[in-house]
Every structure is written in C-alpha cells, then in structure tokens.
C-alpha cells in the first residue's frame, strides 16, 4: 500500500487537472449554450438545443471514444489527456447549459419588467439585474454538475490517461489487491469531491442575498 501511494497521489493530480480544465471548458460551453438557447435567433436556439440533446442523449464514454479513436479519421489527432479534457468539458457543458438556462429563466419575470420600465435595455437588464440573481441560483446546481464531472473523469481511464482509476487498475496487476487499490482510488475521489463541495458551499454563502 505505502509503496504505491505516491503513484496514486500523482494520479490524483492528473484527475484534478482533468477536472479543473474540463470544468473551465464546461463553464464556457455552458454559458455559450445557455446564451444560444435563450437567444432571439431561432438558428441559435436550434443549435443550442441540438447540442444539449445530442450530448445528453449519448453515453459520455462513446463521446470520449469518438473524439480519441474516431478523431484521427477526420484529421483530429489528440493526446489522450487532451482528448479527455475536450470530451469531458464538452459533455459537462451540455448539462451546465441547462443549469444556467434554468437559473436565468427562474429569475422572477417582474425583475425584467421593472428594469425595462426604468429604461434599461435588454442587455443592461441582463447584466445588472438578471445575471447577478441567476448566478446565485446556479452555484449549487453547478456544484452538482461539477461533482458528476469529477467522478466522470474516471471514464478517460478507458483511453489510457494515467489518472486515478487507470492507476488503480494498473497496480492490481503487480499487487493482486483489487479491493485495496480500488478502495484507495475511491477514497481519493471522495476527498477531492468533499473539498470541492466545501468550496461550492463557501461560494454559495458568500454571494447569498443579504
């Protein structure tokens, strides 16, 4: 156990990098997706809706495989880690699209009316009135998305990214202790998720309405 621990810590670092990078990408995709789904343009709304239903309608593992194994066929050659980040980020972005959209449309309609009757434009209303309230509403549900994302990083073990799950599998071969190896990997996931959860709660409290 002690002998393999440093390797697990290294692997945990890879899992954290995967999580952080794909989370950042997911937030960008989510914001763009939500903007598209709430747009006045039918073409953008259609694009956003298609993104969400395709991604949510297919297994994340298939998406990872398509990008990593299918990519080269159409000229996209990626390292496993890069493919992992892109696929996971693009995947979680679809869920985040719905989270952000949900938060934005659940801000009371009266807020929009009040701002518009004062003479604020659509954009000014969104920026100063709707978004600040929507951000508060979306922190916790985005936390749920991020929780799913962190656990979802285990999928990229299937394309040989040396993260926690892959590392656990690898050391079963030399230790013959699958219970201990998976238990250790699981425990580290839990620590990462627990700490992330604390961060989300902290952020949520910080921006709570007075």
């Amino acid at each position, binding site marked *: 156990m002690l002998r393999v621990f440093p390797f697990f810590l290294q692997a945990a670092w890879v899992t954290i990098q995967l999580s952080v990078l794909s989370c950042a990408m997911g937030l960008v995709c989510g914001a763009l997706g939500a903007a598209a789904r709430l747009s006045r343009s039918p073409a953008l709304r259609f694009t956003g809706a298609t993104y969400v239903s395709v991604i949510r309608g297919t297994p994340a593992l298939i998406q990872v495989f398509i990008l990593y194994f299918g990519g080269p066929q159409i000229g996209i050659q990626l390292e496993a880690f890069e493919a992992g980040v892109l696929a996971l980020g693009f995947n979680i972005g679809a869920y985040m699209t719905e989270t952000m959209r949900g938060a934005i449309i659940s801000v009371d309609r009266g807020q929009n009316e009040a701002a518009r009757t004062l*003479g604020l434009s659509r954009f000014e209303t969104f920026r100063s009135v709707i978004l600040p309230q929507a951000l508060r509403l979306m922190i916790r549900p985005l936390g749920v998305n991020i929780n799913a994302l962190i656990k979802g990083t285990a999928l990229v073990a299937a394309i040989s990214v040396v993260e926690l799950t892959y590392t656990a599998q690898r050391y079963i071969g030399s230790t013959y202790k699958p219970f201990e190896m998976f238990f250790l990997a699981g425990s580290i996931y839990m620590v990462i998720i627990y700490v992330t959860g604390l961060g989300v709660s902290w952020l949520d409290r910080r921006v709570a309405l007075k």
Partner: protein
Amino acid sequence: MSDRPIIDIRHAAKSYGSLEVLKDISLQVQTGQIVAIIGPSGSGKSTLLRAINDLDPLSSGEVWLDDIQVNKALPTRQYETHINSVRQNIGMVFQHFNLFPHLSVRDNITLAPKMLKGISKAEADQLAVEQLNKVGLLDRIDYYPSQLSGGQKQRVAIARALAMKPKVMLFDEATSALDPELVEEVNLVMKQLAEEHMTMIIVTHEMGFAQDVCDRVLFMDQGVVVEEGPPDVIFRNPANERTKNFLRKHLKGQH
C-alpha cells in the same frame, strides 16, 4: 398646442387569439391629472396601463406620450432604442414591488439613473437621498429589500421610479399585495405626489382612495370603458347598470 394631452391613447385594441381584452379604447390624460381605472379583474385595466409603456403591446391603436408615439412601428433595433428612451419618462409601480433583491435600497434607486443619465456617484447618492426623503425612508438607504416591510418596499419602488424624473407615473394595483395596515403609508406617498401635481394613472381596487385623490375615474369591464367621469359622479351617482353593480359589490364592507 398647450392643451395637448401628455398621454393620448387612440383606439387601443388588444386580443389574445380570439379573446379581446381591450376593445377600441381611447383616453386622454392632461398634465397633472390623476386618473383612476377601476373595474373587475379581467376587465383589461392592467393591460391598458401596461400598454402605455408598451410592456403589453397593443394589437392595434396608438399610444402617445406628449408628441412621441410610444408604440411606433420600427425595425427591432431602432424600436429598442426608441422604447428605452420613452420608458425613462414613464415611471411604473407594480403590485409586487419588483425591487432588485441583490441591490441595496440606494442601488435600487440609483441603478437606472447612473446607467442611463451618466450622473456621477455623488449626484446619484444625492438623488437617492432626495427620493428617499420624499417617501420617508432615508434611514433605510443601506438596507436590502428583504429587510423591509411590504409597505416600505413599495415606497422604495416609488422612489426608484421617481428617480428617473418621469413625466407620468403608472400604478398597477400598488397596494393590492399589502397587508391592510400597510396600505395607508403607500397611499400617503401617492397623495403627496398628487399634491405635487404628478400626472398619475392608477389601476386600483381601493375605491376610497380613488375617490379622495383622483380627478377622473374610469370604470372598465370586459375590455371597454363603460363609464367615466369625476369621482363624485362615478361613485355617488353612476349612470350605468354595470358600474352600479360593481360598486355595490365593492363598496360593501368598505368604510
């Protein structure tokens, strides 16, 4: 043209599918006039009020604010610019206050003036102080909406609308969501505005207040103005049977 009405509604009509909520309504309001619109729910009175700043666009007809047509037919972009500048002149107060919960009372009041009139922070603060003084809530300037009572929220909402120095104020059942004991403080603020000759159009269920404060009363039912006139006539001696019925039901139990 000094007697041009500040608000001029010409043949306003609106329908949702086959449901006609406004049927050919015309209404002129002179500067300084205070008009109450009463009537049963579903009569179209809120829809008419919300048509004045194009919050609920009409199906046909025109709304004029002084010499500007509010609901001008323009391409989307131009219309947006047009309506945003028109709305700065029309204050609106809602039944549910619609204060911005993430902003302090001060910021609720100064948000729009700062953004739209390019005034400095000091000027904005001065403006907030002035307007809060007017509604008697200066001591609440750094509170948040959730820390205020319903009556106080509505007074802040009035101050927020006044901070844009509107030419007209629209009140959409401003006291309907308030506990009975909080109604009076809002009524007092509205009375004070009346004394300052603010032009006001007030959709209300409070007959007593309409009678006290307004110059004219419109009774609406099923999308038409059934009867209109000075409050004394409408409340004491209505001519129309529907008006009589409505008032009989409504004045019962009111003192």
